[in-house]
């Protein structure tokens, strides 16, 4: 803050921060350039892949081809498999994410309010979190069967810890000055929590939620690959078992699309909630 930034000066230019950003026209031009280059990368990659297979530099049996993957995708939609299997995977992912993050936020808050609980449980939770938890997937299959319940609970076990740790970190990151101010205004400890601590920890919690969503999908797909009667993960194993490379790759494309959609949705919610940042 320099001397020339008097109140009057600032008052007429409330968004002085904007000066730091490049001019909008230049920004739009740059955006078009980036988009053009991105498309170029896609065309070169797919074209090169297609060329390499047609010239038999690569074996179609192992790498399939853009045309075959496209056909497999069309077949996915024509047969309706994309809806039946996609829905199974999506539902398990959302359920696992919802339960895992709700528990994570809840336990994180309880720990923040009752430090004794935090101290007692933290070594166990840390040990459990340090474990490569994918290794637990077979146990979940044994406990909950090959239906979607085992996938949901496996995803919960992944999401819970990520969100718990972020919730705790978020609550600890809230500025002491803000809680003191609220107290000096006569806030009860309940009010300090709901009006100051909770909203103050939202950014950090959201970082955990974003990561948790990715892990939820990962857990569900991995569980389905292990043992399942339906779901996109099960489809991958099934196609791979029949050496249908195009089917495997088409399933991956669908999974990527689901993942991007879920992330976009969360980003939208985040932008609305964190407008102030």
């Amino acid at each position: 803050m320099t001397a020339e930034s008097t109140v009057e000066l600032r008052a007429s230019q409330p968004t002085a921060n904007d000066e730091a950003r490049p001019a909008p026209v230049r920004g739009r031009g740059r955006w078009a350039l980036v988009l053009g280059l991105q498309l170029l990368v896609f065309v070169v990659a797919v074209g090169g892949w297609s060329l390499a297979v047609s010239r038999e530099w690569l074996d179609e049996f192992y790498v399939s081809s853009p045309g075959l993957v496209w056909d497999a995708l069309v077949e996915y939609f024509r047969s309706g498999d994309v809806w039946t299997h996609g829905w199974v995977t999506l539902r398990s992912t959302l359920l696992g994410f919802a339960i895992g993050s709700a528990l994570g936020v809840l336990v994180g808050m309880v720990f923040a309010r009752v430090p004794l609980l935090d101290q007692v449980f933290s070594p166990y939770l840390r040990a459990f979190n340090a474990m490569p938890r994918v290794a637990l997937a077979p146990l979940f299959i044994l406990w909950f069967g090959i239906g979607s319940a085992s996938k949901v609970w496996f995803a919960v076990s992944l999401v819970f810890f990520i969100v718990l740790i972020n919730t705790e970190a978020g609550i600890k990151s809230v500025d002491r000055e803000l809680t003191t101010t609220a107290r000096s205004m006569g806030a009860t400890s309940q009010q300090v929590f709901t009006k100051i601590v909770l909203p103050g920890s939202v950014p950090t919690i959201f970082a955990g939620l974003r990561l948790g969503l990715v892990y939820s999908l990962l857990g569900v797909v991995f569980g389905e690959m292990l043992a399942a009667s339906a779901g996109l993960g099960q489809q991958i194993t099934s196609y791979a078992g029949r050496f249908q490379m195009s089917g495997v790759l088409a399933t991956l494309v669908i999974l990527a699309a689901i993942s991007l959609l879920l992330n976009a949705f969360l980003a939208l919610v985040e932008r609305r909630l964190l407008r102030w940042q």
Partner: protein
Amino acid sequence: MTSDAASEPRETSIEIRGVTHHFTSGGRSVQTLDDVSISIPQGQFVSVVGPSGCGKTTVMNMVAGLVTPSSGTVTVGGRPRSQVGRDVGYMFARDGLLPWRTARQNVELGLELRKVRAEERHLASSRLLAKVGLSSFADYYPKQLSQGMRQRVAVARTLALDPDLFLLDEPFAALDAQTRVTLQNEFLSIWEGLGNTVMFVTHDLDEAIALADRVIVFSGRPGRVKLDIPIDLPRPRDVATIRFDPEFRRLSELVWDAMEHDTGIDESTDEVAS
């Protein structure tokens, strides 16, 4: 102002009698205040200055009800202080605005804590934002405001609670010189219209004299009242020009003199602390 406080003006004269304060640090007892007695009549603007660590903020926290004296008594309006008083408007050097709330929502925070209805809150915040000249910035987030504007929002937030007593702990310390003078003048003109009791802690001697009816100088730790002088400068005052008044200079010399012999550490400190 909210209606209830306006209808019953409360007595907020402050009586501090024979107050001492100790805290324990590393097994050793440290004395921060030694037999401090101050009597502040209703409606007086008192500045408290002194070297860092002299306990001036501790005295203020006692008046707020945030700290209990080791011995002695503190009463506000004749009632002893036992818990955080709801009649107090506290302001700090940092604005303490909630970054996720707009200027308006920040001003309304205290009213929300007191469960004031939304329409009433909205009316109050509109009036107060106008008072601090930020009507057109009501929906801006703190991040979008300059430091001076943020501190104005903090002033409006403090006024929203319609406090009977202002406790200000270097509220203008974080501002650049020009903005500080603007805000000091604005605060003075608001206060001159209210006439509440004010306790103002600062380390800026000129600020202390320019704003107050009376300046109290604390000695270094443990804090004792070293000088207590009335400031008989005419009101309304302009903080920017009053420093050229000969009377201001005379008072300034007096206060400087009292401060000069005190660096915060002297022999008597150890004597009393042990």
